[in-house]
């Protein structure tokens, strides 16, 4: 396993001559279609909320949202708070219900609280979102890098070392043998190459996490196929 891991890292380093290409698609530049007023503070913020929602896998009962840097300074004017709650409700950036997301959260029983943090983050637009219900909780740290594009920096305290250059998915699973192999088999079957992979767990036999950087985006059918595997709890895209 370690040898394979090392080889994957080497391969990743040589990809595209090692030059960082964070914005891969022309639609990262011309797009997204969104409700204003800010791509980083509204659309990007919403997307961080949406990743938390997707990783959690169901509508959370409560959410603690911590805002840092420029998010903390200017969230009110940009509707960053409204947007993150909209993301937690699984809205898209162009959903015009966004303006009413606080109201809708109340109707749907999502209890949210905001914490304005003084700490200076590595990136000016950082949010930490902790979501939960009676069955469990999940923590996501996301940064909005501009133009609506985001990066997920941490999941459940585990720091992700993603390049942001390639599409990436996160899988939450029960820590059992065979999970990694099963996921790899499905990707192999669909001829999708893994550029970089990290695995982690908090405690032996409990919750584990896989982060995979892929050479291409995978469609919903493949996402569903992975989700249907034994011991796989959640599958979510974190970089598209």
């Amino acid at each position: 396993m370690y040898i394979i891991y090392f080889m994957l890292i080497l391969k990743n380093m040589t990809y595209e001559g090692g030059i960082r290409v964070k914005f891969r698609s022309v639609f990262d530049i011309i797009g997204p279609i969104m409700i204003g007023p800010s791509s980083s503070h509204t659309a990007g913020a919403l997307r961080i909320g949406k990743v938390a929602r997707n990783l959690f896998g169901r509508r959370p009962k409560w959410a603690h949202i911590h805002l840092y840097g420029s998010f903390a300074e200017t969230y009110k004017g940009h509707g960053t708070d409204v947007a993150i709650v909209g993301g937690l409700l699984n809205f898209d950036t162009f959903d015009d219900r966004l303006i009413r997301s606080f109201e809708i959260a109340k109707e749907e029983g999502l209890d949210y609280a905001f914490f304005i943090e003084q700490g200076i983050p590595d990136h000016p637009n950082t949010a930490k979102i902790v979501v939960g219900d009676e069955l469990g909780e999940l923590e996501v740290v996301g940064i909005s890098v501009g133009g609506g594009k985001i990066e997920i920096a941490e999941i459940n305290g585990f720091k992700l070392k993603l390049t942001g250059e390639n599409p990436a998915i996160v899988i939450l699973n029960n820590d059992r043998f065979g999970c990694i192999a099963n996921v790899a088999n499905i990707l192999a079957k669909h001829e999708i190459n893994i550029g970089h992979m990290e695995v982690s767990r908090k405690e032996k036999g409990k919750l584990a996490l896989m982060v995979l950087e892929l050479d291409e985006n995978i469609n919903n059918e493949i996402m569903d196929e992975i989700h249907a595997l034994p011991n796989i709890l959640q599958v979510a895209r974190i970089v598209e």
Partner: protein
Amino acid sequence: MLFKTVRDLVELAEKENKKISHIMIEQEMLVTKKSREEIIAQMDKNLQIMENAVQKGLSGVTSHSGLTGGDAVLLQKYIEKGNHLSGDLLLQAVSMAVATNEVNAAMGMICATPTAGSAGVVPGTLFAVKNKFHPSRQEMIEFLFTAGAFGYVVANNSFISGAAGGCQAEVGSASGMASAAIVEMVGGTPRQSAHAMAITLKNMLGLVCDPVAGLVEVPCIKRNAMGAANAIVAADMALAGIESKIPCDEVIEAMFRVGKMMPSSLRETAQGGLAVTPTALKIQKEIHAGGEK
């Protein structure tokens, strides 16, 4: 990856005798493995959103704070009187850029180009040039791919958000992108597109991001207005054969270095520049007192 710099882009376009928009479409096919038709259809959808936003803005909107709105309409009425100083095309571009950003400030639907705060420049200039040169729908879509190609280089070599690099990174990038796309649309060469972008961006270097009360309204909307004007004048200069002595990639790099030197107070935190003038602070206080979110 087909290109990483403006130089790559221009050389490739010249060598293969292709428009920059076509190279951008090919690269998108390569990266996303989507078909040409799918990619063009997606851009067509973005174009439609831009048209809707301009129409909405020209009918008059007001932001939730009450701070902005209605200037696009004022300018249209002024143009109709026919006694204006600048040309029709220039003022139309300014009016439509303002219209888009007024809709954005009012939490309406827009297409980020490259960001929401700078969403007015590209469509504003596109529709103004359209009114005079009557491009086909296909050519209008190509305009967006060309703008996207130049923005793609900036985003990957520098930055495009005000929080990271100030307004120069946001409206500066948008204006450079627009300028390059205008040149292609009216028949200029890829090299002239690069010079237009360089000339535009050079004139927006150092522009800080200092939103009053943290809102994407003042001075953002008027910066889009002047960004559109800047893009058109630079396009005209490049089409006349004027070249930027500093190559476009080096201007982009300079923008990156200037942005890195900008203090956090001038990068979208509303703690410097216009945001801390007595009037801005008064506005901020009023908005907070009014319970405005």
